């Protein structure tokens, strides 16, 4: 029950890239990368697609809907939430 409430709260959150970090597309690596002080994470395709929508404007519901539409798949909510929680733990995003 409480997990369901938590999930409902999370869906309204508007995550954004954490302060001091920058997300950008790198042609040389053919990947999105997340840049932070003196370091870099190379993101896989799905992580890049999720994070580039974390702009502090879209809420999680909208992010999930967009991804489902863009990639013509359903039921992405659990996967996206799991990734956003991981990204929060890694301090890549804020606002979840």
């Amino acid at each position: 029950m409480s997990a369901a409430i938590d999930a409902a709260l999370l869906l309204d959150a508007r995550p954004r890239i954490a302060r001091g970090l920058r997300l950008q597309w790198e042609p040389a690596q053919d990947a999105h990368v997340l840049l932070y002080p003196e370091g870099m994470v190379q993101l896989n395709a799905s992580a890049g697609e999720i994070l580039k929508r974390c702009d502090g404007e879209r809420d999680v519901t909208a992010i999930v809907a967009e991804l489902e539409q863009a990639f013509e798949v359903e039921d992405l909510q659990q996967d996206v939430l799991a990734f956003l929680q991981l990204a929060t733990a890694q301090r890549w995003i804020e606002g979840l």
Partner: protein
Amino acid sequence: MSAPQKPGPPFWLLAELTYRCPLHCAFCYNPVDFARYEDELSTEDWLRVLREGRELGAVQCGFSGGEPLMRQDLEVLVAEARRLGYYSNLITSGIGLDESRIKRLKAAGLDHIQLSFQDSTREVNDFLSSTRTFDLKRRAAQLIKGQGYPMVMNCVIHRLNIDHVERIIELAVELDADYLELANVQFYAWAQINRAQLLPTREQLRQAEAVTQQWREKLGNKMRLLFVVPDYYETRPKKCMNGWGNVFMTITADGLALPCHTARMLPGLAFPSVREHGLREIWYESEGFNRYRGDSWMKDPCRSCPEKENDHGGCRCQAYMLAQDPAAADPVCDKSPEHHRVLEAIAAAGKPGMIEKPLVFRGPKESRRLDRAF
């Protein structure tokens, strides 16, 4: 034995903008003979280096020195780095940073500032840097926070301040640091000259690590604490620069392109100058960058070592300094026939009363007097 593969891009471009520095730190890694290299690259040279580096695929750009704030064109270079899509890092002592300068750097798009301290107290900070700069650094920390930057502090740790680790951490807490790097000194250049005075004892190291761990637990997520262990106390060498010519390129104040900040000392290697060559040619084709790529250059014990992929034989500069052969195993490794040199230095550190030499402080006059690469 694997043939050298074509390397990937250099992710890191370190621009050592100048060897000039208001500090005189006794552990500085700039070349001992830095005073020979006064002919600094021009603004136009640096703008071209930044552009060529980005075209090669570099994403992290460090502005370092010496003290990079000594360059009056720093804002111009930062703005170009931002425009090109680098993540820009300023590595500074904070001397020369004031309200108007930090605002200009912020407006130019600077992403991150790392501020160095030498100790938690005015007395030791000012002694180790041979300056009166402690209060200026505290002011710089406030300015950095005030502009909304994360506060990333770096303190080089060694025999003379390692017992103050707790107070250094407390200072970081007081200054509201987000990140504190306790970087044990590595023995290159000026630190190598002063090694007998700077190498901590094993007991000091153990204590400092224990204190750091206690604070790590106490602070949790509030501040990240990184403790860089001195490699002399390891039995395997560090994977220096994450591999020679693998991800990292340094450009010195006078335009030499190096695979690491200290490689200039190595004999028999002509490193190319960005005044004469483009970065792409330097990265992929120069002898200096290709010499220690892959593992065909290795000798035993590295050549036949099952762990050679883990550390690539360690640091070429350390091999040269301690074993007089840049292709030897890094003597930090206990498989190295020269490992006893490291053990002897550690044993000497443990004997009280044996250290009587005065510290040699970095400066142009001392540099000219010593006039040697390390």
